[in-house]
């Protein structure tokens, strides 16, 4: 063994180590105590205590003992989602807290009768992050949580003056989308009427029916915000704001769009935005929908009319699909959404509007018809020849009726 020397006390390093160790140990004890204290006094404990106290004062000790302590949750099995909102919102199903401040307010009872909270949870209607048990994260106004709580501040920012309940209608329609009319959702109902009146289905697929000229809107509410083009939208980039601006003026956001500007009034823009954002497909829809309709078939009346028109002299226009946008009055063909001009005069009209005779126009269309022929009605050369023949026949009929002194564009009786 080598010869070594013991270091003299004074030159030994670590003279202060005992003091340092003691200080560090005290600091560690304080930090650990801080951690344990924080964990033992969560945000929700205070709310649960004050609820218990109110119940004790009103109903006595026995009732107070039934109030919850600790984290509470509703497990929505079909969605694989936990809703822990009731941890703080513990008075939601108690009577007598109708005027209390949140989070200890009674939930309006009517809607809970048809949508029991034990089954539906909270976030399917309200949004927010059901996993969390502190306010900031539970209300979902944090980074990396896409579905914030649909509360008053958010409603004021997005649809000023309309209020939180209007904003929440979009969540109602996630399940109620196939209904024509849903009680308690006036904005959504209005948007659904506009949808029919303006004939959005002529170009867009909605609830399983519609054209292919515009984008499929089946699940447009699920479209990721990253996938929108915000380069022409001023201000905060959000999918909701994008749809609002797009309904106001489609061409302002998408330069080469063929979607016309419908000049909607502001409340219709708001209603349509809510409707578009409601078209989403979360996991719970099938389980929650109960007796609600699961499809949106063509109305029987409309179907019968189409069948009749198909047998008439304008049958070709009906079978080919032209009638979705264009009436052909001379043959008695009506359009459910007459956004295109009457085809009775098209053979002459293309010359005036596009400086192309009808045969050139059909073979080489311009404007909206170019998109229509490219995306939805992809006619073969033979079919195009037939189209030219049919359009000329319609115009010949128009001229004949006019020569007979009648107004050919008068709706057929």
């Amino acid at each position, binding site marked *: 063994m*080598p*010869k*070594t*020397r*013991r*270091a003299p006390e004074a*030159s*030994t*390093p*670590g003279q202060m*180590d*005992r003091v*340092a*160790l003691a200080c*560090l*140990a005290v*600091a*560690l004890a304080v*930090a*650990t105590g*801080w*951690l344990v204290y*924080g*964990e033992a006094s969560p945000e929700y404990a205070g709310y649960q205590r004050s609820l218990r106290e109110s119940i004790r004062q009103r109903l006595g000790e026995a009732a107070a003992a039934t109030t919850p302590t600790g*984290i509470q949750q509703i497990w929505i099995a079909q969605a*694989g989602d*936990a809703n*822990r909102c009731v941890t703080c919102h513990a008075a939601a199903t108690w009577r007598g807290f109708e005027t209390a401040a949140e989070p200890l307010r009674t939930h309006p009872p009517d809607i809970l009768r048809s949508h029991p909270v034990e089954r539906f949870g909270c976030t399917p209607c309200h949004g927010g992050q059901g*996993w*969390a*048990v*502190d306010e900031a*994260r539970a209300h979902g106004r944090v*980074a*990396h*949580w*896409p*579905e*914030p709580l649909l509360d008053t501040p*958010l409603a004021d920012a*997005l649809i000023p003056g309309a209020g939180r309940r209007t904003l929440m209608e979009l969540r109602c329609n996630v399940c109620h989308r196939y209904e024509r009319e849903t009680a308690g959702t006036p904005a959504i109902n209005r948007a659904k009427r506009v949808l029919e009146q303006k004939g959005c289905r002529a170009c867009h697929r909605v609830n399983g029916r519609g054209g292919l000229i515009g984008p499929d809107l089946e699940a447009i509410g699920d479209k*990721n*915000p*990253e*996938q*929108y083009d*915000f380069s022409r939208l001023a201000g*905060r*980039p*959000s*999918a*909701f704001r994008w749809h609002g601006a797009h309904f106001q003026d489609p061409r302002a956001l998408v330069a080469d769009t063929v979607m016309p500007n419908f000049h909607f009034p502001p409340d219709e823009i708001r209603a349509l935005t809510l409707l578009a*954002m409601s078209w989403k497909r979360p996991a719970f829809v099938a389980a929650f929908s109960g007796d609600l309709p699961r499809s949106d078939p063509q109305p029987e009346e409309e179907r019968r009319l189409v069948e009749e028109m198909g047998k008439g002299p304008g049958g070709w226009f009906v079978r080919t699909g032209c009638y979705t946008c264009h009436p052909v009055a001379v043959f008695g063909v009506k359009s459910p959404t007459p956004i295109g001009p009457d085809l009775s005069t098209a053979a002459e009209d293309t010359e005036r509007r596009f400086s192309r005779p009808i045969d050139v126009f059909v073979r080489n269309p311009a404007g909206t018809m170019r998109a229509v022929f490219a995306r939805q009605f992809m006619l073969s050369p033979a079919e195009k020849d037939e189209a030219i023949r049919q359009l000329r026949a319609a115009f010949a009929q128009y001229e004949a009726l006019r020569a007979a002194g009648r107004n050919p564009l008068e709706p057929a009786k």
Partner: protein
Amino acid sequence: MPRRRFWSVFPASAREATDAIVANLLLHAFPARMRVRSLAWTPSLWLGTVSWVLFVSLLVTGLPLMVFYIPSTREAYQSVKDIEHVVSFGWWLRAAHRIAAHAMVIAVTLHLARVFLTGAYRNAAEREQHREWNWVIGVSLLAATVLLSFTGYLLPWDQLAYWAVTTSMNIVASAPLVGRSIRSLLLGADEVGQSALMRFYVLHIVVLPIAVAALFAYHMWRIRKDGGLAHPSEAREHQDALVVETIPTVVIRVAVVTVATWLAVTVLAILIPSPLEEAANPLLTPNPAKAPWYFLWLQEIVADTTVRLGPFTINGALVGGVLLPVALLVVTTLWPWLDRSPASTAGVWMPRQRRTQLLVFGALAVLVVGLTVVGLLRGPSWHFFWPWQPWPDMPSRF
């Protein structure tokens, strides 16, 4: 005597002190006596001990996390949400595990830098010493540490995890000949999915911790065999060194370092919450998609070195992601044999005789740290933002 309640060993002789060390399971890794200069702060900065304490704290915090975590693509994200929101101390365990993991990568890297700057891979006594071999073990410990951190990165199964691993694995796949095979081996597929999660999980909780523990034991054993910390006069001092008894001096010093490290982890974990982004979505690349921070300098090189010369394209992923790091790793591993400076520089901080290699090392360190900082400051579309420049609003649903 109150002291005896906390400490029962008071050896009367050097022989008794040695026996006390050898007889104790926990203490027998220590020598019975230690040189005074080895105990000091300056030669080593105690970075190796810090690294080991961080490793043990990762085991301690990792074990309860393992109980709550579910390594399945369907449930991993939700189990981490639950750890974060409802498991008692779960958020802190996760934060402490994350902070300790990042700190361990830093501590091990600094430890390697310290050993390089003091030339501590040299053998001044030249008798039964193989410090160059311990350097190689040290480099593999650094690699294992980085791999531990990287495999842990995937487990939360959020966008950050999914895309950091996807990006890194695509870089690995760009290596000539073996790239795609290595990626297939690690992922069990061509893309990140359930089999990748399982492989990363097994590597993270079993294979790599055992590898680090085994390599560490070997590392410590070699330090003992090589005669402790390197010092230019260790050959002469072998006969005549100034020493202290391990009990109590060394034990208390180790306790100071241990408690200080654990205290830092505890407090930082309380102050710095762990991020958890949206659930992994293979169809949606976040903007920007960044590699883990210790690979950011490589990602920066990858992004900057895709050069086109006439008909030839120099692939950035190949240069920055494969050739450069592999070359650096090989040179680093072999450095003790490449360094021709005299053995008398062993254990001396930045001696004049090694000026050239120190300058090259310094330049490389500045470059790596600089590129890492640039990578950290990158924002959407890989644009550069100064810390005081706000990032543009990211698109949201509402």
